[in-house]
């Protein structure tokens, strides 16, 4: 028994490393356009890992991760925009009657600060919201719906503050980063590789976090928050921490997104993308760390594929995909794998107990 577990672990490690190497080698055999798409998907995958920490492990479903993603992306974009306009005011500010750079844009003249803020601001926003909601034991669907309303508000705010954010159009038309042409093929390849490395780092950091006792506590909070209080834990603190962490990770993902896609706009942080983010996790398999990565890549690949092949009716397929996966693969794709390998191993009775999870 002990032995097989060890073997499993070992083989898993091998598989992970193989995938990682394959991703690193992708520039050798993929076209620029496809590589760029894959890089975008992997940025999404980073976010999905953070979201899964929150949902799969801690049982908090956020339909509002778009805003953290967005804030990170905007931070990066603000720097890129300033870099592109080279000292003059960005065009949308001029149209909105501004005469000088607003205060909150000032720090974003410096790339390092912009990058740091791209992680910090979303994390702090999450910390603030998390503190206010979890402290008061707003949980389950209440939190979920609230997080969704939050998206609505943030988007409204971003759209409404056109002089600061570029409004509906968002920020685009970038030129350079650290002096490199952001749109050139070689820079894009570099961005892709950075994304792969960041993904790997985030993955292993999160894995380390949840493999220990900490992870068990998260599961405890997911399955019986109140019970954890009577064991002496303060679930609010844990939830707030994970929320903050996943907010920061989302911000990081947003930055990588902007670098590769070259635009961020409120449509990318709104209700619909926020829900889709959750779908990546669900589809890949929540409560596993590899699941969200698979989910993010597959859903987006499917989305791109469907829409390229059937531009006028592709949403049928996407909708159907969601429905089928949720109904028939409640544990996502990784759940399918698990079932499959379980069946092959025909383990003893103990593992076969199906326990109903109730996440709310």
């Amino acid at each position: 028994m002990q032995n097989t577990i060890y073997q499993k672990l070992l083989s898993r490690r091998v598989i992970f490393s193989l995938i990682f190497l394959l991703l690193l080698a992708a520039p050798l055999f993929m076209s620029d356009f496809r590589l760029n798409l894959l890089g975008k998907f992997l940025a999404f995958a980073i976010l999905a890992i953070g979201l899964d920490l929150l949902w799969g492990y801690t049982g908090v479903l956020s339909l509002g991760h778009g805003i953290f993603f967005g804030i990170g992306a905007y931070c990066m974009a603000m720097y890129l925009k300033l870099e592109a306009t080279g000292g003059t005011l960005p065009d949308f500010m001029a149209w909105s009657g501004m005469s000088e750079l607003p205060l909150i844009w000032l720090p974003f003249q410096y790339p390092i600060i912009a990058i740091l803020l791209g992680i910090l601001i979303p994390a702090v926003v999450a910390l603030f919201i998390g503190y206010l909601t979890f402290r008061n034991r707003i949980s389950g669907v209440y939190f979920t719906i609230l997080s969704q309303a939050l998206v609505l508000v943030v988007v409204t705010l971003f759209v409404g503050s056109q002089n600061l954010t570029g409004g509906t159009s968002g920020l685009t038309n970038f030129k350079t980063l650290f002096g490199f042409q952001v749109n050139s093929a070689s820079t894009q390849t570099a961005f892709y590789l950075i994304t792969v490395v960041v993904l790997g780092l985030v993955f292993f950091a999160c894995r380390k976090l949840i493999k220990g006792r900490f992870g068990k506590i998260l599961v405890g909070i997911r399955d019986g928050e109140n019970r954890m209080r009577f064991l002496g834990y303060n679930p609010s603190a844990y939830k707030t921490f994970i929320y903050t962490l996943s907010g920061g990770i989302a911000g990081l993902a947003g930055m990588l997104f902007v670098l590769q896609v070259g635009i961020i706009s409120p449509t990318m942080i709104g209700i619909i993308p926020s829900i889709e983010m959750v779908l990546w996790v669900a589809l890949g398999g929540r409560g596993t760390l590899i699941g969200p990565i698979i989910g993010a890549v597959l859903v987006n690949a499917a989305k791109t594929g469907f829409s390229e092949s059937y531009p006028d009716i592709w949403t049928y397929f996407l909708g159907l995909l969601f429905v089928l996966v949720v109904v028939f693969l409640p544990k996502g794709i990784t759940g399918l794998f698990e079932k499959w390998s379980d069946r092959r191993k025909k383990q003893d009775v103990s593992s076969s107990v199906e326990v109903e999870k109730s996440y709310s």
Partner: protein
Amino acid sequence: MFGLNEIIITLFNGISLGSILLLIALGLAITFGLMNVINMAHGELIMVGAYITYVIQNLFVNYAPPEYFDLYFIISIPVALIVAAGIGMLLEVSLIRHLYKRPLDSLLATWGIGLILQQTARSIFGAPNVGVTSPSFLTGGLEVGTLFLPYSRLFILGLSIVCLFSIFYYFYRTASGRRIRAVMQNRQMAECLGVSTRKVDMLTFAIGSGFAGVAGCALTLLGAIGPTIGTSYIIDAFMVVVVGGVGALFGAVTGAFGIGILNTVFEYVTNATLGKVLIFVVIIAFLQWRPSGLVMSRSRSLD
């Protein structure tokens, strides 16, 4: 700054917005509040109601004598109810029933359903908005002094109250309603006591969906009818239910009118964008005070 007149008209507008919110949230208060199904396709069921109204209007234009035209709207309401309920029932049988134990999953699956329904509408009716002409008895309004209260608004207010009371009566005063509540609280035990939970589930989801249809019908008086009509209302509907307290019908009423009035006031003194932001701040503050909505249901169980 404010004259009495302004206060009254703002109040009326707030109540009117509240009644719209209530109407779109009532069905959701059933499917989400009672059944715990996070039905993201609720907005698309509203869309179904709106398109039904459009279709019936066109039937009247093409086949009925013009003097009967206004009747189309009266007929649309029950038809929208029935068709939306039918679609709801179909959804329940094919999909929702697999998801009762997984409320958050229901969110995802119904999101997919929403996508499919939207695309279906686009395929059938085309992507552009379609036009519905309000019946003549609902154009114009009631003039009270300097106030002007549009009939369409008054009608929606009345309709939402009628819907509310029929739902309340049904759920809290009839045996069938009691069965529904029992099943929603403990499906397995209700089954063991002889309640056919399959029937009850189907019926309940159908009722919730049906009221979405009615809301869609009413919304044709106010706004655009297109494939994405649902998305503009769905968040508001959920907010109403959450502020009111999930599972509490009366909470939904207070939630709807509370949000409606506050939103109108905020929007009046600031602008539409800021109004939206302010209302959210108020809701967060409110939930600090009442974390599980206005009508809290204390339960002794641990989780």
